């Protein structure tokens, strides 16, 4: 990945409020929102169609949780950048997400600035 490319962002969260908020407040010039999924299963289906290069991923979701989805997305695309955004605030959860292939971890609740800083770190 280089800094001049436009990243295609897929947002994965079971909360509509959070999905819309991430879409609304992310304002980095190198990132284009391409879609949103409500759980891991939907995210895998949308990955096939939309080919995102960057994903924000909740962990606690119905049908397929974020941890399993991170592992399966990285298996499909080792270059994909995944920012896990979760309320699960213990260190082991963050470590587990990174070991599954996530590139970063942001704890809920978050400010608009914290979200953009976390996304910026991923693409730099």
């Amino acid at each position, binding site marked *: 990945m280089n800094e001049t490319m436009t990243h295609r962002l897929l947002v994965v969260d079971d909360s509509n409020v*959070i999905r819309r908020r991430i879409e609304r407040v992310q304002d980095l010039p190198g990132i284009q929102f391409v879609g949103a999924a409500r759980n891991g299963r939907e995210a895998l289906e949308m990955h096939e169609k939309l080919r995102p290069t960057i994903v924000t991923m909740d962990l606690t979701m119905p049908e397929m949780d974020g941890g399993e989805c991170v592992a399966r997305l990285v298996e499909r695309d080792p270059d994909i950048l995944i920012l896990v955004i979760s309320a699960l605030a213990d260190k082991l959860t963050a470590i587990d997400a990174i070991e599954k292939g996530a590139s970063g971890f942001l704890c809920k609740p978050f400010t608009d600035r914290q979200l953009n800083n976390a996304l910026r770190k991923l693409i730099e």
Partner: protein
Amino acid sequence: MKTESEVNVFVDGVLNYFGTTVQQVAECGTPYLALSRTPEISDYTGMIRISGKRDGVVFFTAPKSMLCVMLMRMQETDMSHDNLCDLVGEIANTLSGNARRDFGHQFNISVPAVVHGRNSTVDYPPNTRAIVIPIEWRTYHARLVVCLN
């Protein structure tokens, strides 16, 4: 709930949530033991089941008007019933999930369940008492109820 420090984990979570998400501080009143087996609930209630290291339920209950203003503070324009349910569930999820920082990795939380209406009831684990944390934000009153054995 065993100690004051455990209650404070949730109080700190509430203060952090409001300060961060809607960027206006909330105040928590003195937590108290619910006298009734079924504490009073408000218009919208988000519930999280806890399992693993602890067993129980955590729920956040708030009036519709408060949730609408919170959405506005988040620049959200959709004030539909579905979005209010979504928000109250997400708040319960966030406050419960944040507690893992202190309760540990085995403090497992469910996806949120949401009930609408003040006449709804919430089930508690047997042989437990609920601790009610009153929340004041702007002119609104909400409650976080924590019931863990």
